[in-house]
């Protein structure tokens, strides 16, 4: 098919390379370098989508990031689908498939367009006033079942992606002396000036090519050559330097404190077709010494009735399509402007062979120098006139024109002018987004009809059009100056190149174009994408929404995916005029990141699947995997939960493991236990202050169970602590608590007691820990161990010794978390697996087993040992869980001590840990179940406590449970009830020990 609107030229195109693509099921041909927008325009496609609310047909408005209308869904080179892409930013690649959105059954014929006829009903905020449903019918139900689903189905734009994203996302941190955002005239000048001074420079631009407006420029010349050639030269020079990093297709999307800027680099789809290994996007996190913002200006649409028909486009966009993509926007072109820039556009189009019939200028005073060249080309120029309406179906076919007098009154007579294209220009709005994100202030300039950035010492410096410097020479000059100012270099002589340019006044107008008649008649769109028209703003004001923030939220103006890039200023000017206030008194809404939408994937980067968080595995993990262990997540660790034999489920495996441990021997990988080596002459004193227990008198070679509180008096960690030497302790912590405990210890040491001579080192991962528990534990270990006498008298319960196992250096703890005779063997991590396997050979000889964390939990519960985080939840004191015995007698202050005497912590009747026995021994309670005094307690009954742990105990031959129950210790022997969906379960409160109540077995 021939691209009928394609003419010669088009600096971005590689004409020799044709590209095939598909839009809404039809095949088209474009060129390499085309965007979807330019290629479709070249093919004569003017209809791109349907609007959000009224489903009005919409065409292309702009040529860049500000596009409000032409949103499409498209499949990327690797097949992933993305909705809501701006066709103006989608670069063609061979095989691109794109589709229009928000229409059914087709773009040409869309049933939803009925909304356009219902629009008098659907004005701003209508849903707040209705759909509540009749109260009698349970209004909420009607809303939920009927109205809400209907509203939801109608809303939304594109279809959501439904398949897992196949693409990769890369990331990079970068530092530079100067970051220049925007590579137009100002940005290029800033980058080159800074580069010349030797600074490290990063220059980024969201577009595929550097040059900004220079690429669209038709008249101005720099040093006697086309402006775009100057840009190409600068870029070539910058490319040759090693202190400059050039990033195209890279949007600066967010400006954060301390000059930290987020950039999103898009990798060209065509390149990704050739190499699917390429990431789709790369997130740059740049810490810049200073920043120059040179983001240019965005042209404003003119607000008149039916200004949204396909075929109505921004004038600058048309010039851009012409210059960069060789596209003539229509067959019969009219321009409507409030500033000078449309004149060169008209000329350029005419010179390229376009049929430009007339230019309508809202202003009455227009310099002859501007209009004469147009008239010379037979383009009528009507000044003091306005377009006040348009007609057409799926494309514009005529506009209505009226005269406008100096007071802004429109004439009574209207004429119709046939055209298929109207190019409009309301003036140019400086892009102060990033300056504002950087918490920079803006000030209204009446001359510029714009908010201009107010410089802040040390803050980003705006240059070029975004600072209101619209002329080319002015832009270049301000870019160079900004770079020097940013780098603290002295102002130099003016080295700006010689620029020949027409003097253009780009001020334009803000607000609504003069109109005739009732302001509520017809839809003069302000925010195209969200279908917000001038009358919606009027309604909002009438309803008392006078703050611009209320207007925004009530009408949704500026809240669409373009974030009001083309609409915000007009909206606020209309509101100002409705309220009779000056524009700055109404003020802007807040600019927020991102500048244009950024994919979640870019932020998430590599953090998916196993890379979401480190998976930590112990040195023995491979053995457990080989044995078919089932793992559970404990913090970031993977721990073997149980080791099922073929055919066993968890309960059977756990029952076997628990029985085996008590009958012969079992071994557990306890390597994840936190370990901290506490060294120094004041080590005992330090622990004395950190734990509730006493440590001074603990002899070297002995261990003690320690309990740690937070300053509020609640249990936060526990573990066995061994005194290795007079000045050295080996502290163990819970698996999850290790980093927290170390952090807290460092905190007290560094900031509360810096006088203490104590040094902390985390040794969690230095040592693999193998717990060997059960009556046969000693027999199992004895043949492997050297240098330690395992005899009960020599190494009694809670003793510590150092020696060798299998020839490997070992720290041996005689401790038990099962209530059985037990040891914990610590060996350097690299030896963990080998030593484990050696012990395993022994264990097998005794019919022993490996057991996992689930069995560990059952075994300790049989003995009534707590697990911090299960019996405790951050609201539990040591006394609550029966640990008062652990308090060091007559000891001084320690962390949390003072809090324990607060009223509530010392009160009677607090929840206390008890054991529970169900009447029916087969019933295993559910952890977290509530406990009440009454059978079948009615709703609203106050709970007395809850079940913290519950298991089937093969050793006890019945279910067991631990619980926290109000005043529990005084209720021992009484019956309480656990209400469950199927009815209450009766339980008897008992001491929390179910096996070996006298505690004899640890002595082996």
């Amino acid at each position, binding site marked *: 098919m021939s691209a009928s609107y394609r003419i010669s030229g088009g600096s971005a195109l590689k004409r020799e390379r044709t590209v095939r693509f598909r839009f809404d099921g039809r095949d088209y041909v474009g060129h390499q370098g085309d965007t979807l927008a330019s290629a479709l325009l070249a093919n004569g496609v003017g209809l791109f989508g349907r609007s959000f609310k009224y489903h009005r047909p919409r065409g292309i408005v702009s040529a860049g990031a500000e596009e409000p209308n032409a949103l499409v869904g498209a499949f990327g080179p690797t097949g992933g689908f993305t909705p809501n892409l701006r066709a103006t930013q989608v670069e063609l690649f061979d095989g691109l498939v794109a589709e229009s959105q928000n229409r059914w059954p087709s773009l040409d014929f869309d049933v939803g367009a009925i909304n356009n006829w219902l629009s008098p009903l659907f004005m701003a905020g209508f849903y707040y006033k209705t759909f509540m449903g009749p109260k009698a019918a349970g209004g909420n139900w009607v809303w939920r079942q009927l109205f809400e689903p209907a509203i939801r189905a109608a809303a939304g734009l594109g279809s959501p992606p439904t398949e897992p994203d196949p693409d990769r996302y890369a990331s990079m941190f970068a530092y530079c002396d100067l970051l220049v955002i925007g590579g137009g005239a100002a940005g290029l000048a800033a980058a080159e000036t800074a580069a010349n001074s030797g600074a490290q420079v990063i220059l980024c631009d969201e577009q595929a090519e550097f040059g900004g407006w220079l690429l669209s420029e038709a008249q101005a010349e720099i040093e006697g050559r086309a402006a775009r050639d100057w840009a190409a030269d600068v870029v070539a020079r910058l490319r040759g330097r090693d202190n400059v990093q050039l990033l195209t297709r890279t949007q600066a999307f967010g400006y954060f404190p301390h000059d930290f800027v987020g950039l999103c680099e898009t990798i060209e789809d065509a390149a990704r077709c050739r190499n699917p290994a390429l990431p789709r996007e790369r997130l740059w996190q740049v810490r810049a010494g200073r920043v120059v913002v040179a983001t240019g200006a965005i042209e404003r649409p003119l607000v008149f009735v039916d200004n949204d028909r396909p075929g109505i486009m921004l004038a600058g966009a048309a010039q851009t399509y012409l210059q960069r993509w060789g596209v003539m926007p229509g067959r019969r072109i009219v321009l409507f402007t409030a500033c000078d820039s449309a004149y060169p556009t008209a000329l350029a189009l005419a010179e390229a062979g376009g049929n430009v019939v007339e230019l309508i200028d809202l202003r009455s005073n227009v310099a002859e120098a501007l209009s004469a060249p147009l008239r010379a080309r037979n383009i009528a120029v009507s000044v003091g006139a306005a377009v006040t309406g348009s007609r057409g179906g799926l494309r514009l076919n005529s506009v209505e024109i009226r005269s406008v007098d100096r007071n802004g009154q429109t004439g009574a007579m209207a004429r119709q002018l046939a055209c298929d294209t109207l190019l409009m220009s309301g003036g140019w709005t400086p892009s102060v987004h990033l300056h504002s994100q950087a918490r920079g202030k803006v000030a209204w300039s009446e001359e510029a009809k714009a908010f201009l950035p107010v410089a802040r010492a040390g803050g980003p410096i705006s240059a070029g059009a975004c600072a209101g410097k619209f002329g080319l020479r002015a832009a270049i000059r301000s870019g160079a100056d900004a770079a020097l100012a940013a780098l603290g270099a002295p102002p130099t002589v003016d080295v700006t190149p010689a620029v020949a340019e027409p003097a253009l006044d780009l001020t334009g107008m803000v607000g609504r174009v003069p109109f005739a008649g009732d302001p509520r008649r017809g839809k003069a769109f302000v925010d195209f994408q969200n279908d917000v028209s001038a009358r919606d703003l009027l309604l909002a004001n009438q309803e008392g929404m006078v703050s611009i923030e209320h207007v925004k939220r009530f009408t949704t103006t500026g809240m669409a995916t373009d974030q009001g890039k083309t609409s915000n200023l007009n909206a606020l000017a209309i509101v100002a005029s409705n309220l009779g206030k000056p524009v700055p008194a109404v003020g802007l809404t807040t600019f927020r990141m991102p500048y244009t939408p950024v994919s979640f994937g870019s932020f998430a980067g590599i953090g998916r699947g196993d890379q979401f968080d480190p998976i*930590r595995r112990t*040195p023995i993990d491979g053995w457990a995997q080989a044995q078919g262990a089932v793992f559970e997540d404990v913090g970031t660790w993977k721990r073997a939960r149980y080791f099922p034999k073929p055919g066993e489920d968890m309960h059977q495996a756990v029952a076997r493991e628990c029985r085996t441990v008590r009958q012969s021997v079992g071994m557990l990988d306890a390597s994840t236990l936190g370990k901290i080596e506490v060294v120094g002459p004041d080590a005992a004193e330090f622990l004395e202050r950190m734990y509730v227990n006493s440590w001074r008198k603990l002899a070297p070679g002995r261990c003690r169970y320690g309990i740690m509180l937070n300053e509020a008096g609640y249990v936060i960690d526990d573990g066995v602590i061994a005194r290795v030497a007079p000045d050295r302790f080996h502290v163990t912590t819970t698996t999850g608590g290790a980093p927290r405990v170390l952090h807290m210890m460092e905190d007290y040491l560094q900031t509360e007691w810096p006088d203490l001579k104590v040094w902390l080192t985390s040794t969690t991962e230095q040592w693999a820990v193998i717990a060997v528990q059960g009556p046969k534990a000693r027999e199992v270990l004895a043949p492997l161990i050297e240098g330690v006498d395992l005899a009960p008298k020599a190494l009694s319960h809670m003793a510590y010794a150092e020696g060798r196992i299998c*020839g490997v250096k070992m720290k041996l703890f005689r401790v038990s978390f099962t209530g059985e005779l037990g040891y914990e063997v610590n060996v350097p991590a690299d030896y963990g697996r080998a030593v484990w396997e050696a012990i395993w050979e022994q264990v097998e000889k005794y019919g022993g087993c490996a057991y996992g964390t689930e069995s560990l939990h059952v075994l300790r519960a049989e003995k009534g040992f707590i697990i911090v985080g299960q019996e405790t939840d951050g609201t539990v004191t040591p006394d609550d869980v029966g640990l008062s015995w652990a308090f060091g007698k007559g000891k001084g202050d320690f962390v949390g001590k003072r809090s324990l005497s607060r009223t509530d912590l010392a009160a009677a009747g607090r929840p206390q840990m008890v054991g529970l026995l169900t009447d029916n021994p087969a019933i295993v309670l559910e952890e977290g179940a509530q406990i009440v005094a009454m059978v079948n307690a009615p709703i609203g009954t106050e709970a007395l406590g809850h079940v913290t742990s519950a298991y089937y105990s093969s050793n006890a031959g019945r279910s067991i449970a631990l619980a926290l129950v109000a005043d529990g210790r005084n209720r021992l022997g009484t019956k309480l009830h656990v209400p469950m969906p199927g009815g209450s379960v009766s339980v008897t409160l008992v001491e929390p020990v179910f096996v070996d109540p006298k505690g004899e077995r640890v002595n082996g």
Partner: protein
Amino acid sequence: MVERRVEPSTATVGLMLPAFADVAALTQTERAERWTLRGPDAALDGLCAALGLARPQRLRATVAGSRAAFWLGPDEILALAELGAAPVDFGAGSDGAAVEVGDKFVGLDLAGRRADAVLASHCPQNLSLAAFPVGKVSRTLYAKVEIVLWRRGASSFRIEVVRSFAPYLVAALTAAAEDLAALDRR
């Protein structure tokens, strides 16, 4: 006399980076002895001396033969030594602490044309030669794990990472190298 003797198994850290050697090569270093040395300067002087090393200054390493000491903080040094040399006697009763951590860490060497970029992909520090010159050491982050980073040359680095984080680190480095390999060839 115990019959059973066992050999160590080096921590396995997963995939290395041979396929991206034009970007950077990653290798796991030999097993080594390591100590965390803590204490005031005077104590650290003594502890380092026991290793035959000078105490490193802020953010720097000192090296003697196959031994090295890294400044990690004003009262913390990580010392490295080849295995098998004579046992080190740190002496008792100093005001500091020497704690054995040889197996806590895994060492990695990262070297090659784009080694700095592979690191900069997920390390938030300024790794330019000016800000991170040869000889500098710093504890920092790589993606979600803490690392100790030592620059040994313009494009060669040594990384020390706590062993259970090593597989994650290697996967992250690999992903970064893969992306750079593709992007550079673009």
